[in-house]
């Protein structure tokens, strides 16, 4: 009998959620990065989660990041002839980062992270209580 698989499960969720936080940070940081071509513009990215059954622990599953994909959103073409990155016709290409959607995602990711930290704390507390049974 051990509470340790709970630490594995919650830990996997913490790392998955922090990957998600990283992608949001990357998207928001590059919201104003422009490119000379449509392909040269920054592409917003988003992770996909997948549940990862724990070996030797029936019914328990952690979570892992299956992959991090660029979102299928074409760059926004903007006419700014004076811009240093403008192409021959005076256009620049900005990534289609939706700051509102990113902030919503950020809140969801940090709540998920916090919930799993609470799980870790509860499991730790119970494991300590179990250790003191013989006292």
């Amino acid at each position, binding site marked *: 009998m051990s509470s340790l698989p709970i630490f594995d499960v919650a830990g996997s969720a913490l790392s998955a959620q922090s990957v998600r936080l990283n992608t949001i940070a990357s998207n928001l940081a590059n919201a104003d990065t422009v490119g000379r071509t449509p392909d040269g513009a920054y592409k917003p990215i988003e992770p996909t989660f997948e549940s990862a059954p724990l070996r030797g622990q029936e019914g328990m*599953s952690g979570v892992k990041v299956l992959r991090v994909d660029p979102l299928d959103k074409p760059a926004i073409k903007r006419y700014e002839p004076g811009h240093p990155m403008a192409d021959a016709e005076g256009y620049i290409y900005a990534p289609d980062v939706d700051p509102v959607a990113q902030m919503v995602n950020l809140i969801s990711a940090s709540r998920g992270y916090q*919930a799993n930290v609470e799980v870790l704390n509860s499991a730790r507390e119970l494991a300590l209580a179990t250790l003191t049974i013989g006292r």
Partner: protein
Amino acid sequence: MAGPFDNPFGLSALSLPLREQRLKVLSSNLANADTPGYQAQEFDFQRALKGAEDHQRRVTAGPSRGPLGMGGGGAAEAMGLADGPDFRRYVTTRQALQPSLDGNTVNTETENAAFGPPVREAHPAHAVVRAPARGPMPPSTAQEGRPLRIPRARPDDRDHGPVREPP
């Protein structure tokens, strides 16, 4: 023969591993709260406790009794410990309250709310298990006919000290 010390820990000892299994299931749900298509799981505590009780009764009544009524399989066996394939019987898939776009049926609020009671209840259960484990009380503190006081788990009561009688 059933004696007073056959099962000194009572239901609490049975319930602790089950509470842990329930926490494991809930922690899996919370970890997968954002996984597309994940089906939330639930641990049927009542049925599991009953199964563990029945199992314990079978083991203690069986012919291969070892010392302390724990049977040949040891304490874990006697407690009907739900680890391993046996415990999967009590895990069910939870019905989603509202459908979600990605097919995930985890409701974070439900999981969070469900996480509280097992943690809170585990503290008194630990206390009940701890009391007989400490051995009989010295005569000065033993009081006839008084029920065991189970301290309530308070947020500030984290040191899990010994069970104390009220003054």
